[in-house]
């Protein structure tokens, strides 16, 4: 069997992780697990929040080196707030994603982090953008990332439907994250979900004992 390198080869704290974002009827859900690990065997934090708010209705989640990700999101947050003051209106999700992409692309040699940017804006409603390691920007109806995502590709391919309701989307995200956490040893802890709609931003936390159980548990 091929040896399968599913963790990022970074030193220091890395978020071997599972992140996802899903568009539903009226908004987006962005979610992640909560484990930060050093190498494969030490969990340096059980309850880290990987969902970072860069503006009122725009969130980012990070996979890869935690240090790189924090630096990039801090810079992006600053640039975005400046941009929105100049524009005198809330920024577009695409603008936030573009800022991340510029930073990733221009520093692609040094950085080792990928991002999912999701949010709501007045122009196009709910959107999801994924900025990958080298700086590619892509818009998708749902996306998964991080080391634990390989295990749930089959599940999300089979189960995703466009235009789900809020409850279905929450169930879909929780199930997908629970399955990935069940198989990936560098993902775990609790499930953090943020639901972003025009009206509000709601943070949902599903602790370990309330996660859905599957056939072997």
């Amino acid at each position, binding site marked *: *069997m091929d040896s399968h390198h*599913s963790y990022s080869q970074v030193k220091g704290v890395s978020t071997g992780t599972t992140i996802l974002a899903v568009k539903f009827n009226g908004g987006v859900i962005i979610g992640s697990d909560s484990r930060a690990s050093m190498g494969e065997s030490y969990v340096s934090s059980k309850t880290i929040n990987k969902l970072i708010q860069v503006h009122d209705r725009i969130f980012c989640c990070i996979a890869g080196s935690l240090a790189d990700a924090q630096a990039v999101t801090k810079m992006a947050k600053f640039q975005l707030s400046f941009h929105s003051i100049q524009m005198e209106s809330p920024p577009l999700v695409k603008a936030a994603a573009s800022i991340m992409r510029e930073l990733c692309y221009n520093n692609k040699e040094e950085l080792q982090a990928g991002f999912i940017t999701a949010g709501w804006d007045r122009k196009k409603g709910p959107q999801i953008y994924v900025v990958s390691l080298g700086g590619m920007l892509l818009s998708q*109806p749902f996306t998964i990332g991080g080391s634990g995502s390989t*295990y749930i*590709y*089959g599940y999300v*391919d089979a189960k995703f439907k466009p235009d789900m309701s809020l409850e279905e989307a929450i169930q879909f995200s929780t199930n*997908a994250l629970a*399955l990935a956490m069940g198989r990936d040893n560098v993902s775990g802890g609790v499930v953090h979900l943020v639901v972003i709609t025009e009206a509000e931003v709601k943070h949902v936390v599903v602790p370990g004992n309330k996660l859905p159980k599957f*056939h072997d548990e």
Partner: protein
Amino acid sequence: MSEELFPEPEWLSEEVKTGTTIIAVTFDGGVVLGSDSRVSAGEAVVNRVMNKLSPLHDKIYCALSGSAADAQTIAEIVNYQLDVHRPRTQYHRTFNKDVILLTSPDDNVVVKQKKKQHLHEIGHILNAFEFDKAWDRTVLRKIKEKVPHDLSIEVEDDPLVCSAATLVKNISYKYKEELSAHLIVAGWDKKKGGQVYATLSGLLTSQPFAIGGSGSFYINGFVDAEYRKNMTKRECQEFVVNALTLAMGRDGSSGGVAYVVTIDKDGAEEKCVLGNELPKFFDQ
């Protein structure tokens, strides 16, 4: 000069691997095995229609993954060894196994060495070889009648799935350093019905379902979520085909057609599901 213009293609020197997806699932009354059909050597696909489900016996199949040569060889060796379970077979120099005496399953007791020796002395036990070599089935039946009713003889007409899996495991473990193949053994026998055994690197474990190969990483979540105990035969076949389709959709080294084998008490049924008949999922 000509070598620079036309360098030898990489796949001629790359090892041939079945980067693959294999899956075996038990259902109420049997098992279903499935595999894709792609064999790759580095980046090239060298065979797009290989059937990776290899028969070990009438009702026992194994699914191959890892290095193609290693996996095929293990399967052939075990197929050869299990031929002992066919009536009137040839004498094998290398295979040597005592008849194992078991007490009746209700007793839950393991027969002690002394008792075995005693039975040997009074002429009840012989080597499995000598059994097959010298006598045909009518004599075997007469011997069984003479043996006390609370003892039974293991060498039956059909091998247990567990025996086949153990033979595979023995080879995998003994040559662990040299071989790199992972076989999933599944089948049906009278004693325990449908069973699936995973034999990764010499481990032997019985599971309700097993997945293997490079494509299996992508469907871990799907099979965890969708597997249910005691499915019907139909549901199980659909489950296997769905899982294979999803894996082939994401894994670069799995693809082609899906081969499905269903084994129950009536025998084994092979089926091939072509690419355009595979189910479709959400795609942008």
